[in-house]
């Protein structure tokens, strides 16, 4: 009996490592910090998680397909800048739609460079990171776009149904991406492509189309994150999200998605994004200086994957 319980427990921990760690951390924080459970603090954690979280949703599909995108930071900035410029003239809804379409187009451009010019995704999106940054700087002249439209700002700072609006958007994004990945032909093709590109080609999967679509999906997600971030800080500028690409990839990887492609989990990325915010929130609550947060974030990342490596080596054989 206890053996069965133990093996069941082992399976759960192996399969849902990051979720178990997150729940444990939440319980520890609830027990040790009186401020953690306050609705204001929880509101802040969920709101902060949304920006990396929404980008990580699209990035999860892209990493499963066997690529990734390093250009998302200036892409996010560009979408925020566009929304900021438009919202005064065309209204809230059209500004958001325009930003999402713009993000999708930028992502499509990345996909086209990868598939048509046959540049590896790493280098193509590294190059486009510089290009998009240049475009953003040229567009804004290096200045900050100030946003005053109150209904737009409510997207970032407001609540709906008692939940921070950005977090609601995050849940919606994950629902859509989950449906795409697990319930559509496109999702099957993404997973097949990441497992074995050559076999997928032989099986007649339109590889280039799937790749471009996935880059475009990342662009749309990043566009949404850009709109919400611009709404939260009531401004947009070229360097607002410097380092965003690595935070997003870190959230995806900690969640359990393999950088080798083929397998991944959206629930993990969702949890991973919250987890990183929670770690820095915990350090804040314990009064640990912000410089130590860099150290803690790095250690968390290495430990999360290191434990996996050690477990595979010494404890369990890979499933």
């Amino acid at each position, binding site marked *: 009996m206890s053996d069965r319980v133990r093996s069941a427990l082992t399976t759960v921990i192996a399969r849902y490592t990051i979720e178990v760690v997150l729940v444990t951390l939440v319980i520890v924080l609830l027990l040790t910090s009186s401020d953690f459970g306050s609705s204001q603090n929880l509101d802040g954690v969920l709101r902060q998680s949304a920006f990396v979280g929404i980008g990580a949703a699209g990035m999860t599909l892209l990493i499963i397909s*066997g*690529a*990734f995108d*390093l250009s998302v930071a200036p892409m996010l900035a560009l979408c925020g800048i566009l929304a900021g410029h438009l919202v005064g003239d065309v209204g809230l809804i059209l500004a958001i739609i325009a930003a999402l379409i713009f993000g999708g187009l930028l992502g499509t451009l990345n996909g086209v*460079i990868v598939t048509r*010019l*046959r*540049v*590896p*995704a*790493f*280098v*193509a999106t*590294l*190059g*486009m*990171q*510089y*290009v998009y*940054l*240049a*475009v953003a*700087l*040229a567009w804004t002249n*290096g200045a900050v776009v100030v946003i005053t439209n109150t209904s737009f700002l409510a997207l970032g700072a407001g609540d709906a149904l008692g939940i921070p609006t950005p977090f609601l958007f995050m849940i919606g994004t994950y629902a859509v991406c989950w449906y795409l990945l697990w319930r559509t032909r496109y999702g099957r093709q993404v997973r097949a492509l990441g497992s074995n*590109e*050559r076999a997928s080609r032989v099986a007649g999967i339109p590889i280039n189309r799937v790749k471009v679509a996935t880059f475009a999906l990342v662009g749309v997600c990043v566009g949404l994150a850009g709109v919400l971030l611009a709404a939260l800080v009531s401004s947009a500028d070229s360097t607002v999200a*410097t*380092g965003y690409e*690595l935070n997003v*990839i*870190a959230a995806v*990887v900690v969640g359990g998605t393999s*950088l080798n*492609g083929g397998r991944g989990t959206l629930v993990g990325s969702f949890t991973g994004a919250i987890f990183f915010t929670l770690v820095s929130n915990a350090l804040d609550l314990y009064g640990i*200086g912000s*410089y*130590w*947060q*860099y*150290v*803690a*974030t*790095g*250690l*968390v*990342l*290495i430990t999360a*994957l*290191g434990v*996996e*490596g*050690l477990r*595979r*080596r010494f404890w369990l054989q890979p499933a």
Partner: protein
Amino acid sequence: MSTASASLRRPGRLSPRRLLDAMQSLGLLAVLVVVFIGVSIAEPRFFSSDSIKAILINSSMLAVCGFGMTLAIALRGIDLSVGSVQALAAVVAAKLSSTGTPLALAIAAALLAGVIAGALNGVVISQLRVPAFVATLGMMSIARGVALIYSNGGSFLVSDSSFTDISRDSIAGVPLPFVITLLALLAAWTLFNHTPFGRHIAAAGGNEDAAVASGIRLAPLVIIVFAIVGLTAAMAGVLLTAQVAYIDGTVGVGFELNVIAVVVLGGTSLAGGRGNLLGTLLAAILIASITGALNILGVATLYQYLAVGLLLILALALQSLRDRLAGRSSADGGE
């Protein structure tokens, strides 16, 4: 048809691989010459010895760290932590020097910090089996934090003139940082092309399983290569300190992507197995020349980003076209 026989023949000096490397270097050299002639016609001051010296000095940091990165990429790894390690080394050197530590000791401590950070990367990658991308992403955060903690968020002014002279002195008219770069190139080139250790790097980067099966011990290889990357990042940190003399924990942000861009532009494939150190040097000089040219022409910084980005994509698109024309499968150049 001819590729099969070509890959069977392995004449010592002019293997197809080396020919491709040489072509890449020649291509970079051609672009460099075009940039120089074009800009010099538009602005004769560009062809002055001062301007050329400045370009060589500015290329040094990218090139030195690029040599380490070339080895890591040849091993099919990558190091995202070099910007933070550069900052850590710069802070160590600047803090020690500004509190009266002798120059040699301050530099030695900075280099040691880099080697330790790099070796830790290697241990995490080889012992904990964390992918290099993630392990060094973690170290990027850790080293940045340690640099900020060690500097206590403050900044240091290096007043020791023998330190800042490193970036001002010349040997036979060649700026000292560039002399250091050439020595580093010689060392890395000898190590990579003329020692069993270097051959093991290429072998393990090309086909890890085959390398292990043929008796290469992976762990020490990975640890030493990443320690070398850490050392070169720290050298870049020392050069930075000598050049700007005013250092805080936030220097070097984004340096890692510039270094990777230079290595890739130099013709080293991210697929692993080969590295073009001379190409790395030429690409670093090219990037520094473009930056210098745009500065002297009074063009806004943003065009530098545009130029680097487009150059990177163009170069890789040409490489992949060349590889396809040469009849090689495109699948081995994937992500």
